[in-house]
């Protein structure tokens, strides 16, 4: 809850952060689409120490029936952390934090998907955090977005996400855990539709001045677009592989294709 804060650390020195990054530099980001055979779409994402797997099922009939919306598909987003993915073992039962993140992440995806094409259905998005070091919710959202595209769900745009914020007096991109524990830390999870820059997820905690916010949002949008590049590349790679596979059909894959 309350973080132990070391007041003596210099979070930024000569334009470099504790881990050697520049102020506007992302941690290494690796995305792979289509990693699970049973899901309709899936994605593995590594972002610094964060390790995330996302899977999409649907659109499938929403059950029980009384939750169905006759005008559009529901988005059911479930963000969960493995018990061992955090420094202190997490209780296996989903907590309030996971519930809140799931809710707003689902809402963040809604604008991106052509939901009205699939009335009475649900699109289930499951994300599991296997390892963590600050920024897992934006990692989860970025992975979910790729998994949706991998599932062939028709979308207006990707959802690209990044953390932005403040530590040691500077506005910085993609805070890691040490930075999130800074005495003056501000954490701003942000997600946008990269083509229109529409903001679909935005939270903040910490003490922030409006003028700092102006810097942060500009940097955040820049960061989201970098993430967008990696997302697109992952999908391009998957698409090329799929084309290759189609050219050389693979019986083994066919034998396991019942789920799709």
């Amino acid at each position, binding site marked *: *809850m*309350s*973080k*132990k804060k070391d007041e003596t650390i210099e979070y930024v020195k000569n334009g470099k952060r504790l881990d050697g990054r520049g102020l506007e530099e992302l941690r290494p980001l690796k995305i792979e689409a289509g990693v699970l055979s049973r899901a309709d779409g899936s994605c593995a994402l590594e972002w610094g120490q964060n390790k995330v797997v996302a899977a999409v099922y649907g659109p499938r009939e929403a059950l029980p029936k009384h939750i169905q919306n006759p005008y559009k598909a529901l988005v059911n987003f479930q963000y969960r952390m493995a018990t061992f993915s955090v420094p202190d073992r997490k209780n296996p039962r989903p907590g*309030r*934090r996971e*519930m*809140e993140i*799931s*809710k*707003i992440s689902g*809402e963040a995806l*809604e*604008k991106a998907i052509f939901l009205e094409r699939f009335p009475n259905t649900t699109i289930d998005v499951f994300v599991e955090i296997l390892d963590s070091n600050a920024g897992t919710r934006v990692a989860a959202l970025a992975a979910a977005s790729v998994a949706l595209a991998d599932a062939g769900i028709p979308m207006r745009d990707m959802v690209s996400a990044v953390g932005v914020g403040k530590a040691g007096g500077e506005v910085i991109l993609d805070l890691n855990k040490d930075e999130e524990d800074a005495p003056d830390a501000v954490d*701003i999870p942000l997600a946008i*539709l990269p083509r229109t*820059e*529409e*903001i*679909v*997820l*935005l*939270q*903040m*905690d*910490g*003490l*922030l*001045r*409006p003028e700092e*916010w*102006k810097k942060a*949002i500009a940097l955040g*949008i820049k960061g989201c677009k970098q993430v967008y590049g990696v997302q697109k590349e992952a999908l391009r790679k998957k698409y090329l592989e799929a084309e290759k596979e189609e050219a050389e059909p693979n019986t083994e894959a066919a034998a396991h294709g019942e789920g799709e």
Partner: protein
Amino acid sequence: MEKVNEMAADIVLDLRADKVVESVKQGKRLDGRKFDEYRKITIKHNISENADGSARVTLGETDVIAGVKIVPGDPFPDSPKEGSISVGIEFLPLASPLFETGPPGSEETELARVVDRGIRESKCIDFGELCIEEGKKVWVAYIDMYTMNDDGNLFDASSIAALAALTQARIPKLEIEGDSYKIVKGEYAKKLGLARKPLLCTTTKIAGHLVNDACFAEEKAMEARFSVATTEDGYMSAYQKGGSGSFTAKEIDECIDLAFAKAKEIRKLL
């Protein structure tokens, strides 16, 4: 007195939402308010003697109660000298035909956590002052909110109620006997100090317009909402965007300006 059919109720809500949208497009709200105008706010303090602090807040017909109980508890292992707060809300089924009994849902959880962050991150409460004995016992301030009537904007009503209850809250008197602690019932050591008064102000987006203090019908018509907790000394301590729609960066800036301005007015009532 007729048997209300749920589907029928849904249709009524949809029709009302359509009217809200039409009206907002023409620059008007159905109840005649300006886009940035709050409904009448009333704050009633000390509504429960058993609470260590309590308040009841109405925003028009929206009605929320908050009570504080300050209780000795165990410190977190990584902050042995600090007390803590815990914020919860229950959407009581007496407040709306749409609320059901049951464990907290995602809407309740979101609201409680946003109100929590607005308070916690503003550092208005000195957690160090809530230490009883380092590593052994600390005060935990439970802030529990209940909806009485939901006519929209529960976020802001709850935030005001929580802060109003906290401004009244007192820390119980404690008798220490050896290594056990006992609260002296009905006696208090001191007031819970509040260094700042963070208040949440929520702006909704309806038909592309920014509208404050949405009533229930307006919430059904909204695309998205954005809440900002601001303090009297020019800080923001929490944001929360909700809903399936989006905001532009420019709209967010407007929401922030509105939040500072509205919170300033409301703070006078506390």
